[in-house]
């Protein structure tokens, strides 16, 4: 129905927006392959002899791998723990609703409204006093707690979408609660649980309030590692770009891969 002209206009506009929005990431990608001299050249060079030196160097600095390792461990552990806590809760609320279910859900969401800065001081002190400051365990606990409401909401939404006639058919066929969970519900909910886990993974990986405030040399993840480049004397743009590229690449791919499910998770099912 669209005329060719309007298609051309739409394409031109859409691609302009896309390129402008993506440009900083593209430029970072490019800078990662430049020498430090090329990286700060004025005017900026678009054509240069690409080098892998920065990647090699960032890799050789053992601490990069440690930061990356921290990111991986903390993100996966935080995600796994939150999912483990959220699955039974969401299951109970979706399939055995009571009068309090709705208010419980809203209350859980409301804990997300609590600004982290409001509780930065006590959490810092609690972590310090319990020896969890600058430990992976400390961050895992925090990440589990801040993501738990999102996990419960998202899983609840997915569980709610399982047609209840299928579960009733299972009950007519003789499935008890345990068999219902194992044979019917979990197989049906696997896609939902997977996309919830993906979202939590992304949120944990990119979290940059608690990771910057509660970690130092020992447990710092990549967010903190990248932040350390902000000191004015560390003007290693090419290396910063290489490190940044490595830090965001896995999550960017994950995000692209799962964008549809992420939308639904982030809106708690309010937008389909």
């Amino acid at each position, binding site marked *: 129905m669209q005329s060719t002209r309007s298609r051309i206009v739409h394409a031109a506009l859409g691609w302009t927006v896309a390129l402008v929005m993506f440009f900083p990431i593209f430029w970072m990608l490019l800078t990662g392959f430049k020498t430090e001299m090329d990286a700060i050249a004025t005017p900026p060079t678009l054509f240069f002899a690409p080098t892998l030196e920065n990647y090699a160097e960032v890799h050789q600095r053992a601490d990069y791998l440690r930061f990356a390792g921290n990111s991986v461990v903390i993100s996966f552990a935080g995600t796994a723990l939150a999912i483990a806590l959220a699955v039974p809760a969401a299951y109970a609320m979706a399939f055995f609703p009571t009068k309090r279910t709705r208010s419980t859900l809203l209350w859980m969401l409301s804990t997300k409204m609590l600004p982290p800065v409001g509780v930065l001081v006590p959490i810092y002190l609690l972590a310090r006093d319990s020896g969890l400051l600058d430990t992976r365990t400390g961050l895992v606990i925090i990440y589990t707690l801040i993501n738990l409401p999102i996990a419960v909401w998202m899983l609840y939404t997915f569980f709610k979408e399982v*047609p209840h*006639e*299928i579960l*009733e*058919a*299972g*009950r*007519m*066929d*003789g*499935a008890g609660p345990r*068999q219902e969970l194992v*044979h*019917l519900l979990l*197989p*049906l909910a696997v896609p939902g649980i997977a996309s919830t886990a993906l979202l939590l993974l992304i949120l944990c990986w990119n979290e940059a309030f608690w990771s910057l405030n509660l970690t130092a040399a020992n447990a710092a993840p990549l967010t903190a590692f990248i932040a350390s480049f902000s000191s004015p004397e560390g003007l290693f743009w090419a290396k910063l770009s290489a490190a940044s590229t490595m830090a965001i690449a896995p999550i960017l791919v994950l995000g692209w891969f799962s964008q549809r499910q992420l939308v639904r998770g982030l809106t708690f099912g309010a937008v389909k």
Partner: protein
Amino acid sequence: MANVSLREVRKDYGSFEAIKGVSLDVRDREFVVFVGPSGCGKSTLLRMIAGLESITGGDLEIDGRRMNEVGPADRGLAMVFQSYALYPHMSVADNMAFSLRLAGVPAAERERKVREVAGILQLGPLLHRKPGELSGGQRQRVAIGRAIVRQPKVFLFDEPLSNLDAALRVRMRIELAKLHESLAATMIYVTHDQVEAMTMADKIVVLQGGVIEQVGSPLDLYHHPRNLFVAGFIGSPTMNLLPASVTAVGPATVTVRLATGTEVAVPVLAGPLRPGDAVTLGVRPEHLNLGADGASGVAGEVLVAERLGGATYLHVRAGGGTMLVVQVDGDTPVHVHDRVLVPVDGHRCHLFGADGLALERTGRHPLADVTRAPRPLTH
């Protein structure tokens, strides 16, 4: 044997009573259809028999055993859902074998039973497909197969044909009727479609607002509707219901006058009726026809002619604002705006008192009490 009996069964949702005391007997090998408009409680009643809804009052007995507190899987029932409710992640064979697997039946026997049932329903080539790869009609057959595999005492159907297109629905209707005969099983079937009810049922249960309006064979309901609701619900096109007033009361006839002035003598017992009382005269479109000029009857103008081919429905406007639907032969040369004369045969009419209840006819229709003879058990 599989008798189901309901005694004053109730379902109370707190603020709202969905089933208001239903008593009913379903005999062994009977095909019983619950029919009624949406929201009448027919599905709720079925789900209470299935064990998917709790029973808040009264008793449910299957073969003389009280089942109110027995779990759905232990009542010896199988159910076919409106949405089919197939397990999307299992193959057709696994869907059908699921109940056997849960019951711990050995794999070899499971497979034998599934193959046997698949043979009955021509599902053999589909056994390894997933439900997502099947057409609506095939899914329907898998759902029925899943029920048959369990060898239940009673089959429950919750509007199973409502998601199929018209042609397939007619075919499945016939297939289900055959299946009922070959399985010699008791079936309880819920539908809002009175054609399904008429064509398949041994016994129809008409529900409205959580109460039973009438129970009877299809022709019993057709010829002897107990009240205005059943009269209007059973039959298509709908029965003409015309306001009338009693002019004379005899021992076996009541004579009434329509708004058009036409007098009709209906063979019913008058009961407390007196001349002058307001009543409703009911007559089905297929029991009306066009009369020759000069005959007595309702005169009017054809406003709409719906031609189905074999039959034509004439919508006739008569005097006094009376609208009448007349079913005539498809070859009748009638046109819109023609003036026609419609004689009304009192023997084909029903009379309803001011309370909506039908007056008892003096004779019963010869086919009203005929039910399908139960076939002797073959296995």
